[in-house]
């Protein structure tokens, strides 16, 4: 056990625990926070694996943007809490599939690494390419995938705006104001009818006049 291994075990245990809590937590916001912890832990794993640049990118993109986006998603969709509300009936199936897969995969990995079919895999000192190497490789060898990725991001940007945007005359602002959830309370009847008032075929104004 080198110092590297010890650090890795600590970071890895934290990451694994946070990941398991992410999928079992009964509170949505707690789940999102555990996800952020997991992602930060993975950044730590990258640091141990001598991938500094990737670790910082992970922090900036995942912890700084993606996890915050998830938190927004949870706030704006006003989800109820409690396991019954968040989980479906498939928990047994899920445990079976994921547990079975984990057992099989880890058995294969342990066999390959410890059993020696990969040869001697223990690295004395972990090294990784520097930032210059990564930059040169991206813009020389991998420039085509890079451009495709940028097109994908542009398409996703436009697509997300188009999807999330309200049509004009959809009584946007009013419904938006009622949509913000002020806590953990499950949605009540009154707010429900308000928010479903923005059904595409039925503007909220019509709905309130005619009544459902």
């Amino acid at each position, binding site marked *: 056990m080198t110092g590297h*291994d010890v650090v890795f075990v600590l970071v890895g245990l934290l990451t*694994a625990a946070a990941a398991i809590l992410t999928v079992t937590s009964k509170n949505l916001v707690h789940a999102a926070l555990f996800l952020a912890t997991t992602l930060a832990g993975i950044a730590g794993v990258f640091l141990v694996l001598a*991938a500094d640049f*990737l670790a910082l990118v992970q922090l900036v993109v995942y912890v700084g943007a993606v996890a915050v986006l998830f938190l*927004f998603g949870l706030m704006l969709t006003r989800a109820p809490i409690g396991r019954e509300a968040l989980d479906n009936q498939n928990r047994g199936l899920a445990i079976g599939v994921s547990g079975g897969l984990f057992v099989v995969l*880890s058995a294969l990995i342990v066999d390959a690494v410890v059993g020696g079919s990969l040869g001697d*895999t223990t690295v004395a000192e972990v090294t990784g390419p520097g930032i210059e190497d990564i930059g040169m490789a991206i813009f020389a060898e991998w420039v085509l995938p890079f451009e495709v990725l940028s097109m994908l991001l542009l398409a996703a940007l436009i697509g997300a705006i188009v999807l999330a945007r309200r049509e004009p005359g959809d009584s946007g602002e009013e419904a938006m104001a009622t949509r913000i959830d002020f806590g953990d309370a499950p949605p009540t009847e009154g707010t429900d009818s308000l928010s479903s008032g923005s059904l595409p075929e039925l503007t909220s104004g019509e709905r309130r006049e005619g009544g459902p």
Partner: protein
Amino acid sequence: MSPLGPLLLATLLFCVGIYGVIARRNAVLVLMSVELMLNAVNINLVAFSNLLFPEDAAVSGQIFALFIIGVAAAEVGVGLAIVFNMFRNRASVNVDDVDLMRW
């Protein structure tokens, strides 16, 4: 350092992600679980390139991981936009409730 640890951690994260995708019913939580699986793949890629093939000074693993991060960001953006739309139209983000196209 042995690659055993990172690979096992990645396996665990991947399986936890699968559990989340199957067992969760809130669409945002399902998206989160997908993120876990993508991150597990990232750990694997970095571990392979830095631990198993360090002599090539292989940048490919890290570059793949960077691409995956970019794709995941795009996926979350579009995914959450779809979830918002779903919430607006059905007042629910449960994946079970979106069974209109079910045969």
